[in-house]
């Protein structure tokens, strides 16, 4: 092959690449991948009371919550930490509410306000981080924490929680525990969502930042690159599932190290709460029971026994809600395989089930709220 022809091939490849990018992503809009993961049958619904959020998912919304909390009289707070089950409603219809909303209504006549913080697939290390932060800035008196066995496979602190670690006061508190120390250490090495992480303390940081800003402002394809990356990873995930026939009912084994880190985080939450005189209520998340659950049953059983052993001194503060939601309230979600339409959803349910969860929780802790 002549050099000239070889160069023509190279130039052709460049042209085709950018034409393809333009065709597929030229008009692409920012994708919310967490929303995408919920599927078309499930909608996110973050309960608000009089224009102020009660259920939030991002730290950015905290200021707005605090504003509302102050306007409602700055009462002591019940903090409810959970995953997307708290804000996902299957088959959403106008007027539907989430467990947060129903629970807040129960609290109307109590001396407590509610802050519900739900993060998709949140692990207990993230909950620990949030708890340490929130109890330091707000008068948290009770903590409700939903524990999902599947989420104990997760180990990372997501990028949008990293700002908490950067706060010196919280950092100093975190390093007092093993969980906190490892979270702080991860932060030191994790570039997070800083695309220029390798350029810290270099002169190039300034040129790269200016160049990137200019490219973002003037070249749409450059600006949309994070979306393209997300789409690529999503397609790879779908490809893996299709090739290996992985679906929601496929058994997901416990990842020992991550499981241990999360259990240690839960212990640290209990310890930290005890030191701050905060009462903790733990519940095992509801899971659909009409099909075989995707866990190793022995591992799941051991997990429940261990959780009970951690709460042995306060047995009435641990609730097993795994069976409380009837089959009819569970739905389906978008397929995670190519060529399939829908798949079973083990995590999200309809509004009626949110009411059941909220009532179950209220019935169990109502007495403790009156006593205090």
């Amino acid at each position: 092959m002549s050099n000239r022809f070889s160069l023509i091939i190279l130039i052709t490849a460049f042209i085709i690449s950018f034409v393809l990018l333009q065709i597929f992503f030229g008009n692409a809009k920012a994708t919310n991948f967490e929303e995408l993961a919920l599927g078309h049958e499930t909608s996110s619904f973050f309960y608000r009371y009089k224009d102020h959020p009660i259920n939030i998912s991002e730290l950015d919304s905290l200021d707005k919550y605090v504003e509302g909390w102050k306007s409602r009289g700055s009462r002591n707070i019940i903090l409810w930490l959970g995953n997307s089950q708290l804000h996902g409603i299957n088959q959403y219809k106008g007027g539907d509410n989430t467990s947060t909303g129903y629970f807040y209504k129960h609290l109307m006549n109590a001396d407590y306000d509610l802050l519900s913080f739900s993060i998709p697939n949140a692990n207990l290390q993230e909950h620990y981080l949030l708890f340490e932060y929130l109890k330091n800035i707000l008068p948290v008196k009770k903590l409700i924490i939903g524990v999902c066995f599947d989420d104990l496979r997760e180990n990372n602190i997501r990028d949008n929680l990293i700002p908490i670690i950067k706060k010196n006061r919280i950092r100093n508190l975190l390093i007092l525990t093993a969980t906190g120390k490892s979270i702080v250490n991860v932060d030191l090495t994790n570039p997070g969502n800083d695309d220029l992480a390798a350029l810290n303390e270099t002169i190039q940081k300034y040129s790269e930042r200016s160049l990137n800003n200019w490219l973002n402002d003037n070249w749409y394809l450059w600006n949309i690159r994070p979306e393209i990356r997300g789409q690529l990873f999503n397609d790879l995930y779908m490809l893996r599932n299709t090739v290996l026939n992985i679906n929601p009912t496929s058994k997901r084994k416990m990842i020992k190290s991550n499981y241990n880190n999360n259990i240690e985080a839960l212990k640290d939450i209990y310890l930290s709460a005890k030191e701050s005189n905060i009462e903790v209520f733990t519940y095992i998340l509801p899971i659909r029971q009409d099909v075989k659950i995707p866990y190793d049953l022995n591992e799941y059983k051991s997990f429940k026994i261990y959780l009970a052993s951690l709460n042995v001194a306060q047995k009435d503060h641990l609730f097993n809600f795994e069976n409380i939601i009837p089959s009819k309230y569970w739905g389906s979600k978008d397929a995670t395989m190519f060529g399939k339409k829908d798949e079973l959803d083990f995590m999200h349910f309809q509004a009626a089930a949110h009411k059941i969860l909220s009532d179950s929780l209220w019935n169990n802790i109502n007495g403790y709220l009156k006593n205090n």
Partner: protein
Amino acid sequence: MLFNSATFIIFLFLVVILYWSLPHKPGLYVLFISSYVFYGFWRIEFLSLVIISTLVDYFAGLKIYSSQNQKHKKYYLFLSLFMNLGLLVYFKYLLFIIDNFNSTASLLGLNFNIPHLNIILPLGISFYTFQTISYSVDVYRGFIKPEKNFVTYATYVSFFPQLVAGPILRAGEVINQLKSKRSFNIENINIGIRRVLYGLFLKVVLADNISQIVDTGFSQNISFLSAIDVWTLAFLFGFQIYFDFSAYSHIALGSARLIGIEFPENFNFPYLATSPRDFWKRWHISLSSWIRDYLYLPISGRKVLDTSKGGLATAADSKQGKLYNFLPLFITWAIMGLWHGANWTFVFWGIYHAFLIAIYRLTSVLHFNISSKVKGFLGWGFTLLFSMLGWIPFRAKNLDDTFKMLGKVFNPYEYNFLGLRENDYLIAALIMISVLVAYFISKNLKPIRKFTKLIYPVAEIVQLVIIIILVFTFLRPISQFIYFQF
């Protein structure tokens, strides 16, 4: 300046345009100035070290050559070695020395502590000091004449494609090309762009994404890792460092090629090596060759070579299997390890490789009644497994973690569970298969081209389109090249 950044792409484009649009002499000045700009984009204050190293060796080279007295020649050589090694010891090893001194003192119950100094490791110091040492030694040995033109010499030392992470090249390999009459040709541009693209692909698409799995894996509590997990992490880090470092070499070779300068290859499918010796003919060839000619052969009392090709392995030919030959081998490898980083884990890594080579030397003289194909396959299998395992000390936090992890590999009870994500095993397996496929294709490229005359250009376009789209999508300086820390 980081290669994996938009700034570098623009910088390279401007340098290439400017270089080829100017006559030879001003073109050389462009390379010289742009190389200093390139380094200054990291931290301008450390440019002074490059300048000091360049100046001292420039004058030492001239003096070594012009001195008639052997003693004087030695004196100037010593000056060059003292200055370069002094810089290296101060910036790279002083903290390590202080740490060890303090630990030893505390072990002996002595009550004093040398306070820690705030020393920043200058980027590329291990590379440019080795390069300038080789220059002075080569002049002393009479292999080359010193370069009289300061700008040419300074450009050789600071030439931006290889300044911060090699390849470590001999003066003879670069200076002659810088001086000789250049001519613009399409082949260089074509190959140069492709090499830069391949390098960026290896770095931003493969190495940077694997690094997230590796970082998570190595930060886990070791007691929850199984032997299979240790193997998986060893393989994943082995791939990460290979992609990362060979990426750097690709971009270095490609950038140099764009200005008409050819560097020797630094990697050649190291994970396809059929023996530990073969591995070191294929991995970081320029460093292995440097160690061979300026360390191993001199302390073994044997004739040195004058090329950055061949790697460390070519030195082992004549006296292999002789026990007395092992001491220089172990000394060399311990130093080679230490060159990579001021930590005992690197020394252990070096000695581990010395052991592998020593065992290979002892066993290679034995004759087994098996076919050469089977022998080659077994050799490949053992070399792959043990070279991958060798990455554990290289990546582990400390020797304690290293021994714990290696201990698991040799404990049969540690093979009965899995502690990583399912994806991690899958990715490790897929990459290994991809490396084998890439090797097969590269070995059979000519026949493939011959039999797929019409399809081949299309296949090449498809391959390039995938690479270009992925590089465009993932290009961002989220992490440095691993070898920057050395």
